[in-house]
Each structure stands twice: as structure tokens, then as C-alpha cells.
């Protein structure tokens, strides 16, 4: 044990007392002083907190390793072509992730198309325009909405959003925008559009609250300077927005990460059909929802292994998105804190 040495060394130094530490010439008693200042309780406490912190460190890598191990059969059989194969056939035991990657990417793009302009608008409203008595309760409610479970959004999607889309929205879209490939085919209600909208609603609170924090981190002096030069409110806001550009990008990436991994709400409204279609009205399938739907039913080893590989892809994707987003948000807030 490392601290046994300090136990022996302690009585030697004890005679000199605490004050001697300061008086002793530099270099002579340095070693024993160092030992003495380390209390046994401190050593135990320090090393146990360090141990648990290390556990968290290990956990992230263990997760990646276990998933990699689980997907070895599928990786060996299909290789990189797993990412580009359109086939998903449990009967023939042939698998490829392209359909699901497509579904995840398209539903996330639809979600961000709706959510991004709105969230930035709300964030600007909250940080630049709204008076305190509106801003505080509204921010609180938006944070609360980010905490509502995915399954509740899914429930609302199934019973309110999907019927509404089927009866009132999708027929109108397909009648009037027939020339676009995105709005063709029958209106099921369940489909890519429903998934995109529910995702937009779910990522909106996240992008909004982080954007608001980023905007608030911009020093007030910046706004005052602009106003003093005679800038209008919008011109001031534009300056603030351009200062916050990279922070807003980070917020968007975090929202994207959430949209990519969102499972329950999407699974409940997307229709779960492994097909690639240009039409947003057609049912689709995402990486997260295929895992949710088929994992318990997967009978062959290759089937399970392919699903685990999809989980691994999702893991890598979200880790990259989150790491990038965190680094960006960190560097921005740090910059303005030091300024």
C-alpha cells in the first residue's frame, strides 16, 4: 500500500510540529513534509472518489467495446457494405442499414427544418425582447417540456397528430403540391412527415434553451455599444447573433443528436416500413425504431448482431455530434467569461 510509507514517516516529522513546516529550510524536509500533509482519511477519500470517476471514464469505453463485440458476426459478414445495403430480410438472414440510416437522416432534417428557425426566434425573444415576468416562467415551462418523456409525446402523436395529418393536412399537401416528389402517394398519417413534426416539437425546447443561454452569455456591453451607435433593435440583435454564431451551431448539433437518437415517439408515428421513398407521406423506419421494434423478436444470431451493429452506428454518430457540440459551446462560453 502506498500510504504505509507515510505512516512510518509521520512520527518522525511529528516532533517538529505544524509551524516547523514553514520555518524549515527549503529542500531539506521537503519529502517528509509532503507525506505529512497527506492525511490517511484524505488518501482513502481521494482515491475512492477518483476510483468512481475512473469508473465513469471506463463505462463509456466499455459500452463501445461491448457493442463492438456484439456486432462482430455482422461486421465480419457484411463489412462496410452494411452501411450501403438496402436489403433487410430476416428470412434470408441478409441485413443492411441503408434504409434506417436514410430514415434517421430524413426525419432529422425535416425536424430541424421546422425547429431551427423557430427555436432561434424563441431564443431571441427570450433573451433580447421579453420582459422578466414573461421570460422566467416561459423559460421554466420550456425546460419542463424538455423533461416530458418521449413516450408521452408519442401517445399525443398517435391520438392527435396522426389523425390530424391524415384528415386535414396530407390530402391538402398532396393535392396542391403534386409537382413535388415529397408529397405524393396516399395519406396514412403515419409516416416520415409525422415523425419529423413530432421530432421538431421535441428538439425545440433543447435548441431553444441552449441558444438562449448562449445569447445571454454575450456581454451586454456589445449591445450597448451597438445601440449607442444608433443601431435599431434588429441591427443590435444581428450583431449579437453573429457573435453567438458558433454557440448556436453547437445548440443545433445537440438538437440534432437528440433527434437522431429519439426512439419511442418516432417509433409510434413513423409507420415502421423498411422502404426508401422520396415522399414524406410514406411510412419509413429509423435506426432507433428498428432496434426498439425488432430486438426482442430477433431470432437468429446474425439478426441480433446486425441490430447491435445499428446500435453501434447510432452510438458513434451521437458521440461525435455531442462531442462536437459540447466543444463548441464550451469554447464560446469560456471566451465570453474570460472577456
Amino acid at each position, binding site marked *: 500500500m502506498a500510504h504505509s510509507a507515510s505512516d512510518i514517516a509521520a512520527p518522525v516529522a511529528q516532533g517538529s510540529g505544524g509551524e516547523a513546516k514553514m520555518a524549515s529550510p527549503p529542500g531539506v524536509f521537503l519529502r517528509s513534509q509532503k507525506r505529512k500533509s497527506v492525511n490517511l482519511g484524505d488518501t482513502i477519500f481521494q482515491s475512492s472518489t*477518483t*476510483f468512481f*470517476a475512473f469508473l465513469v471514464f471506463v463505462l463509456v469505453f466499455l*459500452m463501445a467495446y461491448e457493442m463492438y463485440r456484439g456486432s462482430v458476426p455482422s461486421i465480419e459478414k457484411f463489412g462496410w457494405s452494411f452501411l450501403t445495403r438496402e436489403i433487410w430480410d430476416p428470412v434470408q438472414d441478409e441485413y443492411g442499414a441503408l434504409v434506417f440510416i436514410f430514415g434517421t437522416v430524413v426525419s432529422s432534417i425535416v425536424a430541424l427544418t421546422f425547429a431551427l428557425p423557430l427555436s432561434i426566434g424563441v431564443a431571441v425573444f427570450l433573451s433580447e425582447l421579453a420582459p422578466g415576468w414573461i421570460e422566467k416562467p416561459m423559460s421554466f415551462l420550456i425546460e419542463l417540456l424538455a423533461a*416530458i418523456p418521449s413516450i408521452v409525446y408519442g401517445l399525443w402523436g398517435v391520438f392527435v397528430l396522426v389523425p390530424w395529418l391524415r384528415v386535414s393536412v396530407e390530402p391538402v399537401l398532396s393535392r396542391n403540391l403534386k409537382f413535388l416528389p415529397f408529397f405524393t402517394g396516399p395519406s396514412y398519417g403515419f409516416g416520415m412527415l409525422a415523425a419529423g413534426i413530432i421530432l421538431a416539437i421535441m428538439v425545440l425546447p433543447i435548441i431553444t434553451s441552449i441558444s438562449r443561454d448562449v445569447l445571454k452569455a454575450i456581454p451586454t456591453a456589445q449591445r450597448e455599444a451597438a445601440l449607442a451607435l444608433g443601431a435599431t433593435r434588429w*441591427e443590435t440583435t444581428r450583431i449579437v447573433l453573429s457573435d453567438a454564431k458558433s454557440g448556436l451551431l453547437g445548440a443545433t448539433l445537440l438538437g440534432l443528436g437528440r433527434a437522431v437518437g429519439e426512439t419511442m415517439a418516432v417509433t409510434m408515428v413513423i409507420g415502421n416500413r423498411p422502404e426508401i421513398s422520396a415522399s414524406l407521406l410514406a411510412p419509413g423506419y429509423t435506426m*432507433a425504431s428498428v432496434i426498439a421494434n425488432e*430486438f426482442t423478436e430477433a431470432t437468429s444470431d446474425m439478426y441480433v448482431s446486425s441490430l447491435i451493429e445499428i446500435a453501434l452506428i447510432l452510438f458513434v454518430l451521437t458521440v461525435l455530434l*455531442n462531442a462536437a457540440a459540447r466543444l463548441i459551446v464550451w469554447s464560446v462560453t469560456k471566451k465570453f467569461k474570460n472577456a
Partner: protein
Amino acid sequence: MKLGYSTYHYWRKSKSAITTTLCVLSALVAVVPLFLIFFYSLSQGIGSLNLNFFIKMPTPVGESGGGMANAIVGTGILIGLGSLLGLPVSIMTGIYLAEHKHGSFASIVRFLTDVLSGIPSIVVGVVAYIIVVLPMKHFSALAGGVALGILMIPTATRTTEEMMLLVPHTIREAALALGIPRWKVTLRVILPSALRGITTGILLALARAAGETAPLLFTALGNRFWSTDIGQPIAALSVFIYDYARAPFADWNRQAWAAAFVLIFLITIINVIFRFVTRGRYAGTGNGH
């Protein structure tokens, strides 16, 4: 010349007015549907809630009535298991992060907990399946608990850290000046002052875990019968919502709304408490954090 300037001036003014209006409008457009969802779920749920929901077992397919007593207990057990596994790690890691504010390993761990919070819950479910279900060869409450435990770590860790950092540095310095060893200062002085914030922060993490569905689908699996055995599949409220929402029986759909109400209610209450507890903590002590 003068006219040109003034036209431009009005153009700028009106542009500002237009964009300001757009911002307010987007706030309305974005926020109204969110609140509609929130209050729609609440009103649907409260209309569907009755005493049977809490004390009766689920009925066989097609029969109406019954409740989710087993799922309420099941969710409780899953959260208990998750806390048992996740909270000690989170609290100790949180303490480590707070004590080593600028350490390089602490920065790495802090970064990893942030990244961990962004990993989809379904991926965590797959990991729990690999490390618990596969070796045990069957679905179990324990596997669900492992998944929830991992999911709790980011929130609980960061809350512990942030709440400990909120305690003014002068308190730590005063205690150290009295000659109290560091570990005692942390455990007996700093931690108790931060305890209220940490507890509610952890409650927040638990409430979030209670709503998790995806990681339970192939770990805890769900169960229509009474079970408190952690080695066996167990019922959970969130999994019941998923099953009942897809069922073609109006009465089951009604019960799904009731369960959703219970979850929303729980989360709202805990969020309000958290807001209340952390509001104005040590504000104005000049701590600089």
C-alpha cells in the same frame, strides 16, 4: 439628400419592427403547440384516472376496467435498482469533479458525462441487454435497473458537482483554517450545505428515469402479472403506455393516458421543487462560480 436619409431611416426602423414581430410570432408558433401537448395530455389523463388505476391489476385482453398496480410497483423497483447502481457512482464522481475543478482528468470525465447524456437511451438498453440479459439468458428487472442506472449518471453527477460548487468557497476555507482534514470538510461541511440541491437534482434524474421506455423494452420487458423478483421480467408504467397506446381497445387507450398523466405530474412537481430549492441559493455571496 435629407429625404434619402430619412427614407433609409424609416426603412431601418420598419425592418426592425418587422423582425421583432417575427420573433414574437415565432415564440407564439413554437410555444403554443408545446403547451397544447402538455395540457392536452394532462386533461386526457386526469379524466382517465381513478382509484382502480392505482390498486387493481391489468385485466385480460378485451376486458375493461383494471389498473396498473403492478406497473407502479415495477417502475418503483426499477428506479430503486437503478439508483442503487447509478447514484453511488454519480455522487462520488460529482464530488471528484467539484474537488478537482481544473484538473485535466476531471475535465475529461466531465466531458464524458456530457457525451454520455447525449447517447440515446435505446443504445444504453442494448448495452444492458449485452452485459446482463445475454449472460443470464432471460429478461429481468435487474437488466432494466442497470440501463436506468447508467442513464441516471450524467444528470446526477453534474447536479452533485454544480450544487457543491455553489457552496461559497469561504466556507471551505474557514473549515480548513480550523485544521479539519479535507475529506471531513467535504463530507461534513460542504456536502450537507449542498444536500438540498443534490437531493432534488437526483429526484429530477429519477423522475426522468421513470419515463424511460426504450431501454426497458428488451431488458425489463414488461409483465402483465404481479412480480417483484428482480431476476424476472417486470412491469413498468412507461412500457404499459407503449403497449396500451397501440392496442385497439378504447379502455386500454384511456389507461395509457392515465399512466402518462401520472408521469407528467411526477415530473412537473419535481421540476417545480427543484426550481424552488435552487432559486437564489447563495446568490450575492460573491463566489464567482
